[in-house]
Protein backbone atom coordinates (compact mmCIF):
# COMPACT_ATOMS: atom_id res chain seq x y z
CA UNK A 1 0.00 0.00 0.00
CA UNK A 2 2.74 2.44 1.00
CA UNK A 3 4.78 1.53 -2.00
CA UNK A 4 1.86 2.01 -4.34
CA UNK A 5 1.05 5.38 -2.87
CA UNK A 6 4.67 6.42 -2.99
CA UNK A 7 5.14 5.32 -6.56
CA UNK A 8 1.95 6.97 -7.76
CA UNK A 9 2.69 10.29 -6.21
CA UNK A 10 6.42 10.24 -6.79
CA UNK A 11 5.92 9.52 -10.45
CA UNK A 12 3.24 12.17 -10.64
CA UNK A 13 5.60 14.64 -8.97
CA UNK A 14 8.42 13.84 -11.34
CA UNK A 15 6.13 14.04 -14.34
CA UNK A 16 4.85 17.41 -13.21
CA UNK A 17 8.37 18.62 -12.50
CA UNK A 18 9.48 17.63 -15.97
CA UNK A 19 6.46 19.47 -17.27
CA UNK A 20 7.50 22.59 -15.31
CA UNK A 21 10.79 22.55 -17.13
CA UNK A 22 9.75 21.64 -20.62
CA UNK A 23 6.54 23.63 -21.02
CA UNK A 24 7.07 26.91 -22.79
CA UNK A 25 4.06 28.68 -21.42
CA UNK A 26 4.50 29.90 -17.84
CA UNK A 27 0.93 29.18 -16.80
CA UNK A 28 1.33 25.52 -17.72
CA UNK A 29 4.52 25.43 -15.73
CA UNK A 30 2.71 26.98 -12.82
CA UNK A 31 -0.05 24.38 -12.87
CA UNK A 32 2.50 21.61 -13.08
CA UNK A 33 4.33 23.07 -10.14
CA UNK A 34 1.11 23.07 -8.15
CA UNK A 35 0.84 19.39 -9.04
CA UNK A 36 4.36 18.78 -7.72
CA UNK A 37 3.52 20.53 -4.50
CA UNK A 38 0.27 18.68 -4.00
CA UNK A 39 1.90 15.29 -4.50
CA UNK A 40 4.74 16.28 -2.18
CA UNK A 41 2.12 17.09 0.43
CA UNK A 42 0.84 13.52 0.16
CA UNK A 43 4.39 12.20 0.51
CA UNK A 44 4.80 14.33 3.62
CA UNK A 45 1.71 12.66 5.05
CA UNK A 46 3.32 9.30 4.32
CA UNK A 47 6.31 10.42 6.32
CA UNK A 48 4.14 11.46 9.25
CA UNK A 49 4.52 15.18 8.68
CA UNK A 50 0.87 16.18 9.01
CA UNK A 51 1.44 19.77 9.84
CA UNK A 52 4.03 20.30 7.15
CA UNK A 53 1.73 18.70 4.61
CA UNK A 54 -1.06 21.12 5.48
CA UNK A 55 1.37 24.04 5.53
CA UNK A 56 2.73 22.91 2.17
CA UNK A 57 -0.69 23.16 0.62
CA UNK A 58 -1.72 26.35 2.40
CA UNK A 59 1.52 28.26 1.99
CA UNK A 60 3.00 26.93 -1.20
CA UNK A 61 0.04 25.88 -3.27
CA UNK A 62 -2.47 28.25 -1.74
CA UNK A 63 -0.45 31.44 -1.38
CA UNK A 64 2.86 31.47 -3.19
CA UNK A 65 1.63 29.84 -6.36
CA UNK A 66 -1.43 32.06 -6.38
CA UNK A 67 0.97 34.98 -6.45
CA UNK A 68 2.75 33.45 -9.40
CA UNK A 69 -0.46 32.80 -11.26
CA UNK A 70 -1.56 36.30 -10.42
CA UNK A 71 1.58 37.84 -11.85
CA UNK A 72 1.41 35.68 -14.94
CA UNK A 73 -2.15 36.86 -15.50
CA UNK A 74 -1.35 40.47 -14.72
CA UNK A 75 1.56 40.57 -17.15
CA UNK A 76 -0.31 38.38 -19.59
CA UNK A 77 2.89 36.46 -20.11
CA UNK A 78 3.02 34.58 -23.36
CA UNK A 79 4.96 31.55 -24.46
CA UNK A 80 8.67 32.06 -24.49
CA UNK A 81 10.69 32.30 -27.66
CA UNK A 82 12.94 29.49 -28.63
CA UNK A 83 16.51 30.69 -28.87
CA UNK A 84 19.12 30.84 -26.21
CA UNK A 85 22.13 32.99 -25.99
CA UNK A 86 23.79 31.33 -23.06
CA UNK A 87 25.98 28.88 -24.83
CA UNK A 88 27.82 27.95 -21.71
CA UNK A 89 24.69 26.95 -19.88
CA UNK A 90 23.67 24.79 -22.82
CA UNK A 91 27.05 23.19 -23.25
CA UNK A 92 28.02 22.62 -19.64
CA UNK A 93 24.61 22.33 -18.07
CA UNK A 94 23.52 18.90 -19.17
CA UNK A 95 26.73 17.01 -18.30
CA UNK A 96 27.01 18.84 -15.01
CA UNK A 97 23.42 18.07 -14.10
CA UNK A 98 23.92 14.44 -14.97
CA UNK A 99 27.07 14.40 -12.84
CA UNK A 100 25.27 16.04 -9.90
CA UNK A 101 22.39 13.63 -10.05
CA UNK A 102 24.70 10.66 -10.40
CA UNK A 103 26.88 11.68 -7.49
CA UNK A 104 23.99 12.42 -5.19
CA UNK A 105 22.23 9.18 -6.11
CA UNK A 106 25.46 7.30 -5.50
CA UNK A 107 25.89 8.83 -2.08
CA UNK A 108 22.27 8.25 -1.16
CA UNK A 109 22.58 4.59 -2.07
CA UNK A 110 25.82 4.30 -0.15
CA UNK A 111 24.62 6.12 2.97
CA UNK A 112 21.11 4.72 3.14
CA UNK A 113 21.08 1.01 2.37
CA UNK A 114 17.81 -0.54 1.30
CA UNK A 115 17.14 -1.88 4.76
CA UNK A 116 16.34 1.54 6.23
CA UNK A 117 12.74 1.84 5.22
CA UNK A 118 9.76 3.95 6.05
CA UNK A 119 6.21 2.97 6.67
CA UNK A 120 3.14 5.02 7.31
CA UNK A 121 2.71 5.70 11.00
CA UNK A 122 6.38 5.07 11.74
CA UNK A 123 6.78 8.59 13.01
CA UNK A 124 3.97 10.42 14.76
CA UNK A 125 5.84 13.43 16.06
CA UNK A 126 4.86 15.71 13.22
CA UNK A 127 1.50 16.97 14.43
CA UNK A 128 0.63 20.57 15.05
CA UNK A 129 1.28 20.21 18.78
CA UNK A 130 4.84 18.93 18.44
CA UNK A 131 5.76 21.37 15.70
CA UNK A 132 4.25 24.23 17.68
CA UNK A 133 6.08 23.27 20.83
CA UNK A 134 9.44 23.10 19.07
CA UNK A 135 8.71 26.30 17.18
CA UNK A 136 8.01 28.33 20.28
CA UNK A 137 10.74 26.90 22.47
CA UNK A 138 13.85 25.65 20.71
CA UNK A 139 13.33 27.62 17.54
CA UNK A 140 11.88 30.78 19.04
CA UNK A 141 14.68 33.03 17.88
CA UNK A 142 14.66 31.84 14.24
CA UNK A 143 10.89 32.11 14.37
CA UNK A 144 11.04 35.73 15.44
CA UNK A 145 13.74 36.39 12.88
CA UNK A 146 11.60 34.97 10.09
CA UNK A 147 8.67 37.05 11.23
CA UNK A 148 10.81 40.13 10.83
CA UNK A 149 11.99 38.83 7.48
CA UNK A 150 8.40 38.49 6.35
CA UNK A 151 7.63 41.98 7.53
CA UNK A 152 10.54 43.34 5.56
CA UNK A 153 9.44 41.37 2.53
CA UNK A 154 5.92 42.79 2.78
CA UNK A 155 7.16 46.34 3.05
CA UNK A 156 9.67 45.77 0.28
CA UNK A 157 7.11 44.28 -2.05
CA UNK A 158 4.70 47.13 -1.43
CA UNK A 159 7.36 49.75 -2.00
CA UNK A 160 8.59 48.08 -5.17
CA UNK A 161 5.20 47.52 -6.68
CA UNK A 162 3.60 50.73 -5.48
CA UNK A 163 6.07 53.09 -7.06
CA UNK A 164 5.62 51.59 -10.44
CA UNK A 165 1.89 51.05 -10.40
CA UNK A 166 1.03 54.58 -9.31
Amino acid at each position, binding site marked *: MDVILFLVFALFAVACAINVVVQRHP*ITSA*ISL*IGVMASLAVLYLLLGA*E*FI*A*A*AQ*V*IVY*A*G*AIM*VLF*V*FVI*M*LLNAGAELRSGRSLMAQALGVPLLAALLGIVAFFVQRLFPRETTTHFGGFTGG*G*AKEVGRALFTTYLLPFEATSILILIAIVGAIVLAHKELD
Partner: protein
Amino acid sequence: MDSFIVISLIKVAVVFAVLLTTLAYLQWVERKVIAHIQVRPGPYRVGPHGLLQPLADVVKLITKEDLRPPFVHKALYLAAPFMAMTLALMSICVIPFGPAIHLGGVPTWMQLTDLNIGVLFVLAVSSMGVYGVAFAGWASNNKYALLGGLRSSAQMISYELPMSIAIAAPLLLSNTLSLRTLVDTQAGGIWHWNVLRGPFPQIVSFVIFLIAAFAETNRVPFDLPEAENELVAGFHTEYSSMKFASFFMAEYANMITVSSMAVLLFLGGWMAPWPARYGSSVVPVLVFACAGAIALYHGIRPARRRDRYSLPVTGVVFLTVAAVFLLPMVQNWLLPLFWFGAKVGSILFTFMWVRGTLPRFRYDQLMGFAWKWLFPAAMLNLLVTGFLVAWVS
Protein backbone atom coordinates in the same frame (compact mmCIF):
# COMPACT_ATOMS: atom_id res chain seq x y z
CA MET B 1 -11.37 -3.91 7.17
CA ASP B 2 -14.05 -5.00 4.77
CA SER B 3 -16.88 -3.55 6.80
CA PHE B 4 -14.88 -0.36 7.02
CA ILE B 5 -14.71 -0.08 3.25
CA VAL B 6 -18.37 -0.99 2.81
CA ILE B 7 -19.53 1.48 5.41
CA SER B 8 -17.29 4.14 3.98
CA LEU B 9 -18.75 3.57 0.53
CA ILE B 10 -22.27 3.78 1.92
CA LYS B 11 -21.44 6.95 3.75
CA VAL B 12 -19.89 8.51 0.66
CA ALA B 13 -22.95 7.64 -1.39
CA VAL B 14 -25.37 9.01 1.21
CA VAL B 15 -23.44 12.20 1.80
CA PHE B 16 -22.97 12.78 -1.91
CA ALA B 17 -26.63 12.27 -2.71
CA VAL B 18 -27.86 14.40 0.17
CA LEU B 19 -25.37 17.12 -0.59
CA LEU B 20 -26.18 17.39 -4.26
CA THR B 21 -29.89 17.48 -3.56
CA THR B 22 -29.33 20.10 -0.93
CA LEU B 23 -27.30 22.13 -3.40
CA ALA B 24 -30.11 22.06 -5.91
CA TYR B 25 -32.74 22.95 -3.37
CA LEU B 26 -30.62 25.58 -1.70
CA GLN B 27 -30.89 27.48 -4.93
CA TRP B 28 -34.65 27.24 -4.77
CA VAL B 29 -34.70 28.27 -1.10
CA GLU B 30 -32.54 31.25 -1.87
CA ARG B 31 -34.76 32.41 -4.67
CA LYS B 32 -37.79 32.04 -2.44
CA VAL B 33 -36.25 33.85 0.50
CA ILE B 34 -35.07 36.75 -1.59
CA ALA B 35 -38.38 36.90 -3.35
CA HIS B 36 -40.20 37.18 -0.06
CA ILE B 37 -37.79 39.81 1.19
CA GLN B 38 -38.60 41.77 -1.95
CA VAL B 39 -42.34 41.04 -1.59
CA ARG B 40 -42.80 38.85 -4.62
CA PRO B 41 -43.76 35.18 -4.81
CA GLY B 42 -40.57 33.78 -6.40
CA PRO B 43 -40.60 30.53 -8.42
CA TYR B 44 -44.18 29.40 -8.58
CA ARG B 45 -44.87 27.61 -11.83
CA VAL B 46 -43.11 24.27 -11.70
CA GLY B 47 -44.74 22.09 -9.11
CA PRO B 48 -46.52 23.29 -5.99
CA HIS B 49 -44.86 26.53 -4.85
CA GLY B 50 -42.22 25.94 -7.51
CA LEU B 51 -40.92 22.94 -5.66
CA LEU B 52 -39.88 21.19 -8.84
CA GLN B 53 -38.03 24.24 -10.14
CA PRO B 54 -34.57 22.79 -9.32
CA LEU B 55 -35.34 19.72 -11.38
CA ALA B 56 -36.38 21.87 -14.28
CA ASP B 57 -33.20 23.90 -13.95
CA VAL B 58 -31.08 20.79 -13.99
CA VAL B 59 -32.81 19.49 -17.09
CA LYS B 60 -32.41 22.85 -18.77
CA LEU B 61 -28.70 23.10 -17.98
CA ILE B 62 -27.94 19.56 -19.07
CA THR B 63 -29.75 19.83 -22.35
CA LYS B 64 -28.31 23.21 -23.25
CA GLU B 65 -25.74 23.34 -26.02
CA ASP B 66 -22.23 23.05 -24.63
CA LEU B 67 -20.59 26.09 -26.21
CA ARG B 68 -16.85 26.42 -26.33
CA PRO B 69 -15.80 29.88 -27.44
CA PRO B 70 -12.81 30.15 -29.79
CA PHE B 71 -9.48 31.62 -28.54
CA VAL B 72 -9.79 30.13 -25.11
CA HIS B 73 -6.95 28.22 -23.50
CA LYS B 74 -8.54 24.86 -24.11
CA ALA B 75 -7.21 22.65 -21.31
CA LEU B 76 -7.59 25.22 -18.58
CA TYR B 77 -10.97 26.36 -19.81
CA LEU B 78 -12.23 22.84 -19.40
CA ALA B 79 -10.37 22.10 -16.20
CA ALA B 80 -11.43 25.21 -14.28
CA PRO B 81 -15.05 24.30 -13.46
CA PHE B 82 -13.95 20.78 -12.70
CA MET B 83 -11.35 22.08 -10.26
CA ALA B 84 -13.80 24.44 -8.62
CA MET B 85 -16.34 21.69 -8.08
CA THR B 86 -13.86 19.07 -6.89
CA LEU B 87 -12.24 21.34 -4.36
CA ALA B 88 -15.60 22.54 -3.11
CA LEU B 89 -16.72 18.96 -2.50
CA MET B 90 -13.43 17.86 -0.98
CA SER B 91 -13.86 19.77 2.26
CA ILE B 92 -17.10 17.96 2.98
CA CYS B 93 -15.06 14.78 3.58
CA VAL B 94 -13.85 15.91 6.96
CA ILE B 95 -16.98 17.64 8.20
CA PRO B 96 -18.70 15.66 10.97
CA PHE B 97 -22.48 15.82 11.08
CA GLY B 98 -23.13 13.93 14.23
CA PRO B 99 -21.73 11.65 16.94
CA ALA B 100 -20.82 7.98 16.73
CA ILE B 101 -23.61 5.67 15.69
CA HIS B 102 -24.03 1.97 15.12
CA LEU B 103 -24.72 1.03 11.56
CA GLY B 104 -25.65 -2.61 11.23
CA GLY B 105 -23.87 -3.41 14.45
CA VAL B 106 -20.67 -1.66 13.39
CA PRO B 107 -19.78 1.54 15.22
CA THR B 108 -19.02 4.40 12.91
CA TRP B 109 -19.04 8.18 12.82
CA MET B 110 -21.39 10.44 11.00
CA GLN B 111 -18.48 11.81 9.07
CA LEU B 112 -16.58 10.57 6.04
CA THR B 113 -13.20 10.68 7.76
CA ASP B 114 -11.62 12.37 10.70
CA LEU B 115 -8.19 13.97 10.40
CA ASN B 116 -5.92 15.11 13.20
CA ILE B 117 -5.56 18.28 11.24
CA GLY B 118 -9.12 18.59 9.98
CA VAL B 119 -9.24 22.34 10.37
CA LEU B 120 -5.99 22.75 8.49
CA PHE B 121 -7.29 20.46 5.79
CA VAL B 122 -10.36 22.61 5.26
CA LEU B 123 -8.20 25.72 5.18
CA ALA B 124 -5.82 24.11 2.71
CA VAL B 125 -8.58 23.03 0.38
CA SER B 126 -10.30 26.37 0.54
CA SER B 127 -7.02 28.11 -0.22
CA MET B 128 -6.73 25.98 -3.33
CA GLY B 129 -10.25 27.06 -4.28
CA VAL B 130 -8.86 30.26 -5.73
CA TYR B 131 -7.48 28.43 -8.71
CA GLY B 132 -10.79 27.39 -10.17
CA VAL B 133 -11.96 30.97 -10.38
CA ALA B 134 -8.60 32.40 -11.40
CA PHE B 135 -8.01 29.88 -14.17
CA ALA B 136 -11.55 30.21 -15.41
CA GLY B 137 -11.08 33.95 -15.71
CA TRP B 138 -7.74 33.71 -17.41
CA ALA B 139 -8.49 30.82 -19.75
CA SER B 140 -11.63 32.50 -21.08
CA ASN B 141 -9.43 35.04 -22.86
CA ASN B 142 -12.00 37.73 -22.17
CA LYS B 143 -11.28 40.99 -20.43
CA TYR B 144 -14.34 40.83 -18.19
CA ALA B 145 -13.57 37.30 -17.21
CA LEU B 146 -9.91 38.11 -16.57
CA LEU B 147 -10.80 41.08 -14.40
CA GLY B 148 -13.32 38.98 -12.53
CA GLY B 149 -10.77 36.23 -11.99
CA LEU B 150 -8.09 38.65 -10.78
CA ARG B 151 -10.49 40.39 -8.44
CA SER B 152 -11.63 37.11 -7.06
CA SER B 153 -8.17 35.72 -6.42
CA ALA B 154 -7.01 38.92 -4.75
CA GLN B 155 -10.13 39.03 -2.66
CA MET B 156 -9.92 35.43 -1.60
CA ILE B 157 -6.26 35.67 -0.64
CA SER B 158 -6.96 38.82 1.35
CA TYR B 159 -9.88 37.43 3.26
CA GLU B 160 -8.23 34.12 3.93
CA LEU B 161 -5.92 35.81 6.44
CA PRO B 162 -8.52 37.28 8.79
CA MET B 163 -10.45 34.05 8.41
CA SER B 164 -7.54 31.85 9.44
CA ILE B 165 -6.73 34.10 12.36
CA ALA B 166 -10.35 34.18 13.42
CA ILE B 167 -10.35 30.38 13.32
CA ALA B 168 -7.22 30.21 15.45
CA ALA B 169 -8.90 31.87 18.43
CA PRO B 170 -11.57 29.20 19.11
CA LEU B 171 -8.91 26.57 18.44
CA LEU B 172 -6.98 28.02 21.37
CA LEU B 173 -10.00 27.43 23.57
CA SER B 174 -10.60 23.90 22.33
CA ASN B 175 -6.94 22.96 22.00
CA THR B 176 -7.36 20.59 19.05
CA LEU B 177 -7.30 20.62 15.28
CA SER B 178 -9.59 17.65 14.80
CA LEU B 179 -13.09 18.75 13.95
CA ARG B 180 -14.67 15.91 15.87
CA THR B 181 -12.76 16.59 19.08
CA LEU B 182 -13.50 20.24 18.55
CA VAL B 183 -17.20 19.55 18.86
CA ASP B 184 -16.68 17.24 21.82
CA THR B 185 -15.00 20.02 23.76
CA GLN B 186 -18.10 22.16 23.31
CA ALA B 187 -20.55 19.69 24.81
CA GLY B 188 -22.84 20.61 27.66
CA GLY B 189 -24.98 23.53 26.56
CA ILE B 190 -24.85 26.86 24.87
CA TRP B 191 -22.48 28.46 27.38
CA HIS B 192 -19.89 25.85 26.47
CA TRP B 193 -19.98 26.73 22.79
CA ASN B 194 -16.90 28.58 21.71
CA VAL B 195 -18.92 31.61 20.76
CA LEU B 196 -19.90 32.13 24.40
CA ARG B 197 -17.26 30.16 26.23
CA GLY B 198 -14.89 31.45 28.89
CA PRO B 199 -12.35 32.77 29.42
CA PHE B 200 -13.03 34.87 26.37
CA PRO B 201 -16.24 34.48 24.34
CA GLN B 202 -15.43 34.33 20.66
CA ILE B 203 -18.21 36.60 19.47
CA VAL B 204 -15.84 38.96 17.69
CA SER B 205 -14.05 36.07 16.09
CA PHE B 206 -17.39 34.56 15.00
CA VAL B 207 -18.45 37.79 13.31
CA ILE B 208 -15.09 38.13 11.60
CA PHE B 209 -15.32 34.54 10.41
CA LEU B 210 -18.78 35.12 8.99
CA ILE B 211 -17.73 38.30 7.17
CA ALA B 212 -14.67 36.58 5.74
CA ALA B 213 -16.82 33.63 4.78
CA PHE B 214 -19.06 35.92 2.76
CA ALA B 215 -15.98 37.14 0.91
CA GLU B 216 -14.49 33.68 0.49
CA THR B 217 -17.63 32.44 -1.19
CA ASN B 218 -17.92 35.56 -3.33
CA ARG B 219 -21.35 36.37 -1.93
CA VAL B 220 -23.08 39.72 -1.60
CA PRO B 221 -21.86 42.17 -0.40
CA PHE B 222 -18.49 40.93 -1.63
CA ASP B 223 -19.55 39.58 -5.01
CA LEU B 224 -17.22 41.90 -6.92
CA PRO B 225 -15.83 39.10 -9.12
CA GLU B 226 -19.23 38.72 -10.76
CA ALA B 227 -20.50 42.27 -10.49
CA GLU B 228 -22.85 42.11 -13.43
CA ASN B 229 -23.13 45.86 -13.99
CA GLU B 230 -19.34 46.14 -14.37
CA LEU B 231 -18.13 42.76 -15.55
CA VAL B 232 -21.13 41.14 -17.27
CA ALA B 233 -20.85 37.97 -15.22
CA GLY B 234 -17.25 38.00 -14.10
CA PHE B 235 -15.09 34.94 -14.37
CA HIS B 236 -17.87 32.71 -15.74
CA THR B 237 -18.96 35.06 -18.51
CA GLU B 238 -17.82 32.62 -21.15
CA TYR B 239 -19.25 29.53 -19.52
CA SER B 240 -22.57 27.93 -20.27
CA SER B 241 -24.52 24.74 -19.67
CA MET B 242 -23.11 22.21 -17.17
CA LYS B 243 -19.79 24.03 -16.83
CA PHE B 244 -21.68 27.08 -15.68
CA ALA B 245 -23.73 24.89 -13.37
CA SER B 246 -20.52 23.51 -11.89
CA PHE B 247 -19.44 26.96 -10.81
CA PHE B 248 -22.86 27.54 -9.38
CA MET B 249 -22.82 24.32 -7.45
CA ALA B 250 -19.33 24.99 -6.25
CA GLU B 251 -20.46 28.29 -4.84
CA TYR B 252 -23.30 26.68 -2.95
CA ALA B 253 -21.14 23.80 -1.79
CA ASN B 254 -18.67 26.32 -0.45
CA MET B 255 -21.47 28.07 1.35
CA ILE B 256 -22.43 24.82 3.01
CA THR B 257 -18.82 24.13 3.92
CA VAL B 258 -18.18 27.48 5.56
CA SER B 259 -21.53 27.36 7.33
CA SER B 260 -20.66 23.93 8.69
CA MET B 261 -17.25 25.21 9.72
CA ALA B 262 -18.86 28.12 11.54
CA VAL B 263 -21.17 25.73 13.33
CA LEU B 264 -18.37 23.32 14.23
CA LEU B 265 -15.96 26.00 15.36
CA PHE B 266 -18.27 28.35 17.17
CA LEU B 267 -21.73 26.93 17.66
CA GLY B 268 -21.07 23.58 19.19
CA GLY B 269 -21.64 21.39 16.13
CA TRP B 270 -24.44 18.92 16.65
CA MET B 271 -24.74 19.64 20.37
CA ALA B 272 -28.11 20.79 21.64
CA PRO B 273 -28.20 24.27 23.16
CA TRP B 274 -29.11 22.91 26.55
CA PRO B 275 -28.90 19.40 28.05
CA ALA B 276 -31.47 16.76 27.21
CA ARG B 277 -32.62 16.48 30.81
CA TYR B 278 -34.04 20.00 30.51
CA GLY B 279 -36.01 18.88 27.49
CA SER B 280 -33.93 19.82 24.52
CA SER B 281 -34.89 16.53 22.85
CA VAL B 282 -38.52 17.55 22.50
CA VAL B 283 -37.68 20.78 20.66
CA PRO B 284 -37.66 19.24 17.18
CA VAL B 285 -40.94 17.45 17.90
CA LEU B 286 -42.51 20.71 19.00
CA VAL B 287 -41.11 22.63 16.04
CA PHE B 288 -42.35 20.17 13.46
CA ALA B 289 -45.65 19.66 15.24
CA CYS B 290 -46.28 23.40 15.35
CA ALA B 291 -45.36 23.73 11.68
CA GLY B 292 -47.74 20.89 10.85
CA ALA B 293 -50.51 22.42 12.92
CA ILE B 294 -50.12 25.80 11.26
CA ALA B 295 -50.14 24.20 7.83
CA LEU B 296 -53.28 22.24 8.67
CA TYR B 297 -54.95 25.34 10.09
CA HIS B 298 -54.29 27.29 6.89
CA GLY B 299 -55.33 24.25 4.88
CA ILE B 300 -58.81 24.40 6.45
CA ARG B 301 -59.28 27.96 5.25
CA PRO B 302 -57.05 28.23 2.17
CA ALA B 303 -56.36 31.66 0.70
CA ARG B 304 -55.83 30.19 -2.75
CA ARG B 305 -57.48 27.29 -4.43
CA ARG B 306 -54.48 25.04 -4.85
CA ASP B 307 -53.65 25.40 -1.15
CA ARG B 308 -56.67 23.31 -0.38
CA TYR B 309 -54.54 20.24 -1.14
CA SER B 310 -50.94 21.32 -0.76
CA LEU B 311 -51.20 22.71 2.77
CA PRO B 312 -52.89 19.70 4.39
CA VAL B 313 -50.34 17.42 2.72
CA THR B 314 -47.52 19.53 4.06
CA GLY B 315 -49.08 19.54 7.48
CA VAL B 316 -49.37 15.77 7.54
CA VAL B 317 -45.76 15.41 6.41
CA PHE B 318 -44.59 17.70 9.18
CA LEU B 319 -46.62 15.84 11.76
CA THR B 320 -45.14 12.56 10.56
CA VAL B 321 -41.65 13.95 10.91
CA ALA B 322 -42.54 15.12 14.41
CA ALA B 323 -43.70 11.61 15.18
CA VAL B 324 -40.48 10.13 13.84
CA PHE B 325 -38.53 12.28 16.25
CA LEU B 326 -40.37 10.58 19.08
CA LEU B 327 -39.08 7.12 18.11
CA PRO B 328 -36.34 6.23 20.60
CA MET B 329 -34.29 4.09 18.19
CA VAL B 330 -33.65 6.96 15.79
CA GLN B 331 -33.37 9.70 18.36
CA ASN B 332 -29.71 9.17 19.08
CA TRP B 333 -28.67 10.04 15.53
CA LEU B 334 -31.62 12.10 14.34
CA LEU B 335 -31.45 14.66 17.14
CA PRO B 336 -27.80 15.65 16.54
CA LEU B 337 -28.54 15.78 12.83
CA PHE B 338 -31.49 18.07 13.53
CA TRP B 339 -29.41 20.48 15.61
CA PHE B 340 -26.61 20.47 13.11
CA GLY B 341 -29.02 21.06 10.26
CA ALA B 342 -30.83 23.77 12.18
CA LYS B 343 -27.63 25.66 12.93
CA VAL B 344 -26.23 25.33 9.41
CA GLY B 345 -29.63 26.30 8.06
CA SER B 346 -29.80 29.47 10.11
CA ILE B 347 -26.36 30.53 8.92
CA LEU B 348 -27.32 29.78 5.33
CA PHE B 349 -30.42 31.86 5.89
CA THR B 350 -28.19 34.69 7.08
CA PHE B 351 -26.29 34.41 3.80
CA MET B 352 -29.52 34.87 1.87
CA TRP B 353 -30.84 37.55 4.17
CA VAL B 354 -27.66 39.58 3.67
CA ARG B 355 -27.92 39.10 -0.06
CA GLY B 356 -31.45 40.42 0.04
CA THR B 357 -30.58 43.53 2.04
CA LEU B 358 -27.06 44.79 1.47
CA PRO B 359 -25.61 46.58 -1.56
CA ARG B 360 -22.24 45.69 -3.05
CA PHE B 361 -18.94 47.14 -1.86
CA ARG B 362 -16.61 49.16 -4.04
CA TYR B 363 -13.40 47.27 -4.74
CA ASP B 364 -11.04 49.54 -2.80
CA GLN B 365 -13.45 49.52 0.11
CA LEU B 366 -13.42 45.76 0.03
CA MET B 367 -9.64 45.51 0.19
CA GLY B 368 -9.33 48.32 2.70
CA PHE B 369 -11.90 46.67 4.91
CA ALA B 370 -10.03 43.37 4.87
CA TRP B 371 -6.60 44.77 5.61
CA LYS B 372 -7.34 47.77 7.74
CA TRP B 373 -10.23 46.53 9.88
CA LEU B 374 -10.82 42.83 9.72
CA PHE B 375 -7.19 41.75 9.92
CA PRO B 376 -6.21 43.94 12.90
CA ALA B 377 -9.44 43.09 14.68
CA ALA B 378 -8.79 39.37 14.23
CA MET B 379 -5.20 39.79 15.42
CA LEU B 380 -6.31 41.70 18.50
CA ASN B 381 -8.92 39.11 19.28
CA LEU B 382 -6.38 36.32 18.94
CA LEU B 383 -3.96 38.17 21.17
CA VAL B 384 -6.50 38.73 23.90
CA THR B 385 -7.69 35.14 23.66
CA GLY B 386 -4.15 33.84 23.86
CA PHE B 387 -3.40 35.94 26.91
CA LEU B 388 -6.55 34.91 28.69
CA VAL B 389 -6.11 31.23 27.89
CA ALA B 390 -2.55 31.36 29.17
CA TRP B 391 -3.75 33.28 32.21
CA VAL B 392 -6.43 30.78 33.10
CA SER B 393 -4.28 27.70 32.56
